[in-house]
């Protein structure tokens, strides 16, 4: 696989690189295996044997952070897994993997979406922007700089999703898209703290850095009403 210019992960053949995560996964599997027989017997009695299905591969072409990428993927691969596991763009995070936390938020064709709830093969020709594509350590996107300045995180796991979401959210406001708390549907909504909180509700921060996240967005938006 070609080296992506945005890729900041350690390089080397996957097979020979034993990551901390792989060790953790291996440990989990062996621990679970010890408790498996009883469970397996119960499950075997209660349910039909799992049907075997052949893996289906499909090609997809994406533009990721400005670079054309061509992938041959198991059709089950979500956009999130394509970015992380195939393109090694691990800035986008897997939180709940069910569209409930927003950690996987990326910008596709200008719109923020949960990359965990969409298949990569559904995005033939799409333009995808991840946290790696918004800015670089040397040239941060204004939203990235504002999150640093206002300490808009604690552990940082939700941060790439928060930042991608915030950038696209401000574009939604510019485009005149109303929200649940917009008082008058027939006029443009003013960006207030209440508006930002509602519009960012799809991004959960378990550390509770919300007030600082709000300050960061406030600065980039040029002041909230």
């Amino acid at each position, binding site marked *: 696989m070609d080296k992506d210019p945005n890729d900041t992960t350690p390089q080397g053949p996957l097979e020979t690189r034993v990551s901390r995560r792989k060790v953790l996964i291996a440990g989990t599997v062996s621990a679970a295996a010890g408790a498996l027989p009883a469970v397996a017997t119960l499950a075997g009695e209660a349910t039909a044997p799992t*049907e075997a*299905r*052949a*893996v*289906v591969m*499909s090609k997809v072409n994406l533009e990721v952070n400005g670079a054309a990428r061509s992938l041959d993927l*198991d*059709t*089950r691969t*979500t956009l999130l897994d394509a970015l992380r596991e195939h393109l090694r763009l691990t800035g986008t995070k897997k939180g709940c*993997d*069910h*569209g409930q936390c*927003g950690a996987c*938020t990326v910008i596709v064709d200008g*719109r*923020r*979406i*949960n990359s965990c*709830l*969409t*298949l990569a*093969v*559904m995005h*033939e020709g799409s333009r995808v922007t991840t946290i790696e594509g918004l800015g670089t350590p040397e040239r941060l996107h204004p939203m990235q700089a504002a999150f640093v300045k206002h300490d808009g995180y604690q552990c940082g796991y939700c941060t790439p999703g928060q930042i991608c*979401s915030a950038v*696209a*959210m401000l574009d*939604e406001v510019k*485009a*005149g*898209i*109303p*929200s*649940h708390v*917009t008082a008058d*549907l*027939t006029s443009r909504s003013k960006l207030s703290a209440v508006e930002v*909180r*509602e*519009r*960012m*509700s*799809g*991004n959960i921060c378990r550390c509770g850095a919300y007030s600082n996240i709000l300050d960061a967005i406030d600065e980039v938006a040029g002041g909230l009403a």
Partner: protein
Amino acid sequence: MKAFAYERARTPAEAAAAVAREPGAKFIAGGTNLLDLMKLDIETPTHLVDVNGIGLDEIGKAEEGGLRIGALVRNTDLAADKTVRRDYPVLSRALLSGASGQLRNRATTAGNLLQRTRCPYFYDTDQACNKRLPGSGCAALGGFSRHNAIVGVSDACIATHPSDMAVAMRVLDAIVETVDPQGNTRAIPIADLHRLPGETPHIEHTLKAGELITAVTLPKPVGGRQIYRKVRDRASYAFALVSVAAIVQRDGSGRIAMGGVAHKPWRVDAADAALPQGASAVASALLSGARTTHDNAFKKPLAERTIAAVLVEAGRPA
């Protein structure tokens, strides 16, 4: 997730034919509900037909002054549409009260209508659920049933339909347009799209195999004060405990539908007729024959209070 074959359809008729041809095939549009369920092996399609490239993504005029909403119009775009905001504000309000910005950017009009219940026992494959595994029983009865339905329920199922959008479409008398695998089209009043659970809660709607929703049409605007009020456990990004969609005219007449209380958007003619008499009469008519559990009995008084709040917001006595 179980493996599946994948194809992109180019036209609505081609999509319908493709799903009819393959046993175990399903349409995929936004995918925000289907993929969630596939990851849990609750949905296990063998073949997905991607309908995102078939058009049907525009909002335009319908006959007799109405509005035609393409099946693939995203929830964000429908909520933000200027005509919808001006003439059908209850629909914008309902859409904006649902899900998150990210989900609304992907979720489609037709997909929203056909989304599955969020009953915790439907989601937990270790539990009995007649909707997920017909004949296995209903663990929600006697289980954690705070979110479950109180009207139109059966001994087999007390699940709710989770959509906000559909409740607004019900109060607007929307029509659902479809095309079948043979290319035949039909128009289904939204009242007839979703089924009550009865003995077959796994059969949730009246569409045939391979029948594809192509559009939802709204009749010409009816004016009035249009309100969608949703009561939930969080201020944002949560499903309704109860919700009320209402259109109230100056003389106090109008229409009302509820979400969060039944297996389908809930509307009763007698409740529409009772609107001028206030919340107590409306709630009695809407919830006539209600069957609650220990956990969700609170929904009856909550429904009446929510209706009262809506009437006050509409400038009427509660």
